[in-house]
Structures are given as structure tokens and as C-alpha cells.
């Protein structure tokens, strides 16, 4: 099995002219990217008032995801590090504006101007140190910090990611939270290795009803909830199950486990046939606290 693209070369080198062309002419990839973009847009939960919004497409590549944004009537700015991919986007005459840039250097956008951001299969590239001067943590911090700043209050960012492992997932989520975002991970089809997709759904601003993470999709197309609290965007009803159970009034008193208890237990074990040390005057003696 071929290794992940992220382990082969930095993105601006991996996505050269050949790869860019291959990527964009594969009908399978086009279909997958379209589906992912539709879902990301759905999770963005923009108000459906027909007003076109200004959105950001991070890691827009050849514009496959941007086309979904255009189809839904929005204006967008796309950022990508690979000139080859952007050239393909130009050929396809995408409607959004394209910027050649590195998200790990910060997005370089004015505060509060973006109505929403999506990213399809891109943010995990930040976790690699492609150059000796790169430190993934600094890049993640720069990315999430600048993303938080440029989003309007209450706006969302939906990042579809392919984390290489659990550590990468934690890293990405951790830096997002530290930047001030609230939100969580939505997983679609969690039980299928092939169809499983993860979306980081982040809201700019304090956690509220509207920032409760939406439900992920399951094999049958039903929604399955990974979390205790589920927010229903349409119905405004939120049920939060009781995470904190009331503490039991009586705490088990450790003094009960005195010498007698220990001797009784040792007898039990002997009867069972286990090898138990003989009882001496040291059995169940009180040890020092830092034992």
C-alpha cells in the first residue's frame, strides 16, 4: 500500500504539475472532494437567508472544493501552497480569488472579515516538519491564531482532516482550542475504515447553544451522537445528559481495611490454594505515607 502523501514530500513538491493534473482529472477524487465540501458547508451552518457570504477555502488546491462554494452562491478566497495546483484551478476558471501562500505562516487577513472557513484534506500537512526551520507547533499556532482573528464573531471554521495518528489529532485540536476556538470533532461513518471522515468544527467565540457539535453520520445514514450534548440546529432543543452523577453520600472508609481484613483475605487465598506468605508481626503494619 502506498504511504500517505504527507509522508512522501512537502505539499508544494508533492503536488507538482503531474500530480496536480492527475489529482484533478480523477473522477473518483473529484467526487470525494465534492462530497466532503458539501458536508463541510453543511456543518458551517450558515444562515440560509440566500445572502452570499465571503468564505475562506484553506488548502483550496485546484479549486474542487471552491466550486462547491460557488455553486451555493458564495464568494470565496482560496489559499494554497502549491503553484501547480493553483495553475490547474486557473485553467478550470474558478470563481474565487486564489492566493499562493503557506497557512503555517499565518493567513495574513484583516480581523473579523471572513464569514466562514472550510478546509478539505489540508490541515494535517501542518503536522509535518518539512524544512529544518519548521516547527509544527509554531506553524499550528500561527495558523489557528490568524484563523481565529480573521473570522467574524460567531463564524465557524470546518476543517476536514486526515490525521496520521491519534497524536496528530490531539495536536491539531489542542492548538485550535488554545487559539480560542470552541467546538469539537464530528466523525462521519466512524465504524467504516474506508468511509470514515473527520471534521473539526470550530466556532469563533464563547461556547453557546449554536456551537454545540453537530452529530456525525452513521452507516445507515442516521445520525449518531458521539457526545453527551447534542444540539439540534433547527429545533433549538438541546438535551444535555447528566455527566456529573451525584456523589455517593458515604465514602468507603479505608480504615475498614485493617489487619483483621488482611488476615481474613490471606486465609481465603490459602484456602484457594494460592501461595501466601506466612503471617508475621509485620502483616498489615501501617506503612509510611510515602510508601
Amino acid at each position, binding site marked *: 500500500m502506498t504511504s500517505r502523501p504527507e509522508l512522501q514530500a512537502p505539499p508544494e513538491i508533492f503536488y507538482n504539475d503531474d500530480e496536480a493534473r492527475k489529482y484533478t482529472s480523477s473522477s473518483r477524487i473529484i467526487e470525494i472532494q465534492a462530497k466532503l465540501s458539501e458536508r463541510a458547508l453543511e456543518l458551517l451552518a450558515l444562515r440560509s437567508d440566500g445572502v452570499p457570504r*465571503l468564505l475562506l477555502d484553506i488548502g483550496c488546491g485546484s479549486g474542487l472544493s471552491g466550486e462547491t462554494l460557488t455553486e451555493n452562491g458564495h464568494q470565496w478566497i482560496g489559499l494554497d501552497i502549491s503553484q501547480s495546483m493553483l*495553475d490547474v484551478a486557473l485553467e478550470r476558471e474558478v470563481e474565487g*480569488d*486564489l492566493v499562493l501562500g503557506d497557512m503555517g*505562516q499565518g493567513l*495574513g487577513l484583516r480581523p473579523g472579515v471572513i464569514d466562514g472557513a472550510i478546509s478539505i484534506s489540508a490541515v494535517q500537512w501542518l503536522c509535518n516538519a518539512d524544512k529544518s526551520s519548521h516547527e509544527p507547533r509554531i506553524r499550528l499556532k500561527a495558523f489557528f491564531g490568524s484563523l481565529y482573528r480573521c473570522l467574524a464573531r460567531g463564524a465557524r471554521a470546518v476543517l476536514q482532516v486526515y490525521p496520521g495518528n491519534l497524536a496528530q489529532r490531539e495536536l491539531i485540536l489542542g492548538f485550535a482550542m488554545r487559539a480560542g476556538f470552541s467546538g469539537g470533532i464530528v466523525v462521519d461513518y466512524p465504524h467504516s475504515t474506508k468511509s470514515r471522515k473527520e471534521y473539526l468544527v470550530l466556532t469563533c467565540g464563547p461556547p453557546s447553544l449554536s456551537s454545540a457539535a453537530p452529530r456525525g453520520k452513521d452507516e445507515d445514514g442516521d445520525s449518531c451522537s458521539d457526545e453527551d450534548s447534542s444540539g439540534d440546529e433547527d429545533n433549538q432543543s438541546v438535551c444535555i445528559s447528566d455527566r456529573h452523577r451525584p456523589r455517593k453520600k458515604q465514602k468507603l472508609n479505608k480504615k475498614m481495611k485493617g489487619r483483621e481484613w488482611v488476615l481474613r483475605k490471606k486465609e481465603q487465598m490459602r484456602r484457594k490454594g494460592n501461595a501466601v506468605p506466612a503471617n508475621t508481626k509485620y502483616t498489615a503494619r501501617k506503612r509510611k505515607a510515602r510508601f
Partner: protein
Amino acid sequence: MRLLTHNMLSSNIKGVTNGFPLLIEVEKVVEKQVDFNEDFLRNMFPKIEWKALVEASRTMGYTELPENAESSMLDSDEFLRKFHHALIELHLEEGALVCPETGRKFPVNKGIPNMLLHEDEV
């Protein structure tokens, strides 16, 4: 690159306190026809830095925008058309964006600005 995007971009170089707005060096401007959408213009208007937009459109050769603008002017269809033209229909195809503090140039080719920072600018 449209002036809509230019109005959002700022210089990200380390140590720069105010990297907005980027100055424009024009080599080639293209005008593209785009459908007019009033809702979008109304939504964007409060977010736009008007002075920067007027400056930029003048550099690109469009002088119709008024110096100052208030939200009441959005009711005028003529104003909306001019706003639409400047914001969405003017494209900088070739040229450069210049950081106002350091003078560093970000080249624009085929309408794509190259905002990649060098190692020492991050």
C-alpha cells in the same frame, strides 16, 4: 485578484505592526463581467475599509468611487453598481502588492498574489 480580496489582505511579515492596506503596483488590469448581487454588497459593506478600496480602485484606473461612503448610500442603485464594479469586476492580473511598512513586494502573476514569506520574515 479582485479588490475584494485586496481589501482583506495584510502584510504578515514579522515585526510589521500595520501591514494594511497593501499598496498596488499595476502592470495589467482586466475587467470581468460578474452578476450583480445586492445582498452580497450590503453584507460586505460594513466590513470593507472604504479608504483602502478607493485608493486601490484609483490605482487600477477607476475613479468613480466617492471619497467617503455611508450605509445610507447603499440605497442608491448607481452607488451599488459602482461599488460592485470596483469590488468584484476589476482584476489585477499582473503587478505587485507592496507592504506599506517594509516595502517588500509580493508579486502578482496571472491574478494570483504570491504571499509566501521568506524564512527570515516569519
